[in-house]
């Protein structure tokens, strides 16, 4: 799920660039490497970016025993969605 969230946020298909092999990616993830989403967002992430980053942190927790369940991530996303007002067309034209 974290990977899809990363794709949704960054619009990159590949986690570590398109050069890396499937097996190499598997090794990287097992070793604890994660896509650099915080660095890619820049210094000033907006409200929605923050939500994405927190959800991805939950999904990308390395220890499976500490990793929160999908229900927790879903509840968190729904709760934060209700907190964010729906952006009007005029506001998000610059995006």
């Amino acid at each position, binding site marked *: 799920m974290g990977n899809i*969230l990363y794709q949704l946020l960054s*619009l990159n298909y590949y986690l570590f660039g398109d050069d890396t092999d499937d097996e190499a990616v598997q090794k990287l993830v097992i070793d604890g490497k994660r896509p650099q989403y915080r660095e890619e967002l820049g210094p000033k992430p*907006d409200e929605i970016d923050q939500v994405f980053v927190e959800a991805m942190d939950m999904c990308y927790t390395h220890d499976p025993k500490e990793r929160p369940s999908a229900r927790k991530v879903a509840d968190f*996303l729904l709760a934060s969605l209700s907190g964010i007002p729906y*952006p009007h067309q005029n506001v*998000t034209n610059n995006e």
Partner: protein
Amino acid sequence: MVDYRSARRRSSPLSVTSNGNTTLPIVQKDDNRMEDEDDKKSAYQRFRPFLVFLDINRRIPYLYLIILGSIVMIQSYFQFNTSAPQTINTTPPIQTAKPLCVAMYENPNLSVSILQVYTEKYPTKRQVKSTSSLDQYKAIQKRKYHLPELEAFITEDCKPMHDWQIHSFPSCNKLHEADLAHNIIQSDFIRLINNGFFRDVWTIHDFDLEQTPRVLKTLRLDHDYIDRNYDRHRRDAVAMERLTASPYIVDIYGHCGNNGLFEYSNGGDIDHVLFTKYYRENPLQKYDRLRIAAQIANGIADAHYLDDKGRSTIAHTDITGGQFIFINGVFKLNDFNRARFIRWNPTKNESCGFKVGANRGDVSRNRRSCLLGLSNWNYSQFVSS
């Protein structure tokens, strides 16, 4: 009459004697004989090596050698056959009953034509770069892609958590009522729209009076009708049937053998919404993407929280963007055919683990020799997932 052709052929001019008798016939005969002998001689010289070989007298030593060699070979063959320990197959051979090819009626005169939609008209949509076929073959060998046999679900340590995990709920009548004898290329009732590695995807408008479109998924002809594949379809159907209550998971309407009937989507999947050319140029709003994220999380959470809190019974094991399809405003989780049902270990009081083989990716295989029933693997179009 004078044969001018033979006259021209001979170098000497015609000689006619004074008493009127021509000496031509005699001379002609001699000349002809001489010519024939010359021809024979030249032919003999030309083919001399072969004629020498054909000569029985000269070949006798070779004949001895050949006969001796063949006797030795025959003896060794029989010796090998008799001395080799006879292996007895303790496991029965896998029954792979499947149709050799699919035919369809093309016109009212009932002329049957072989369905070639697999190869020419509907190649697989997911095609990535392909290198040489030998490299791909080696890659397959190297990565140990093999069809794992169906493991026993109930073992000494691990027991199923619920009854439905080991049951099947087929509704074959529903599927058998569907009329599939349409022209698949032109008909509005049934159409082949897509295919994955494992199954073909058809749309059918035939299942109710309102003609709402449904999706029929059938095992591809390249795969065998073995227990493993039956169980994959059973798991797919049972999981989706259990999760019907969830609005974030695709509904199922029927299941029989290696087929399933599902909700129809015409909105594409998440990969489509993010990575196609149109959406790359006009990306979705960030707020909408967050909504999609919430839908995904809810779909996975519903699958994991089916029965008891904290005890997941289903693992999808194939979560990608392509598995969430857009139906009625929601991206719904699809394709549970790789799913695993999670078992419980009563002694350790924890859930049992499971193994998932490497995803093979999409391999499109041509069936040009459909009539002969040979399944040709076309490794040149191997696609890494």
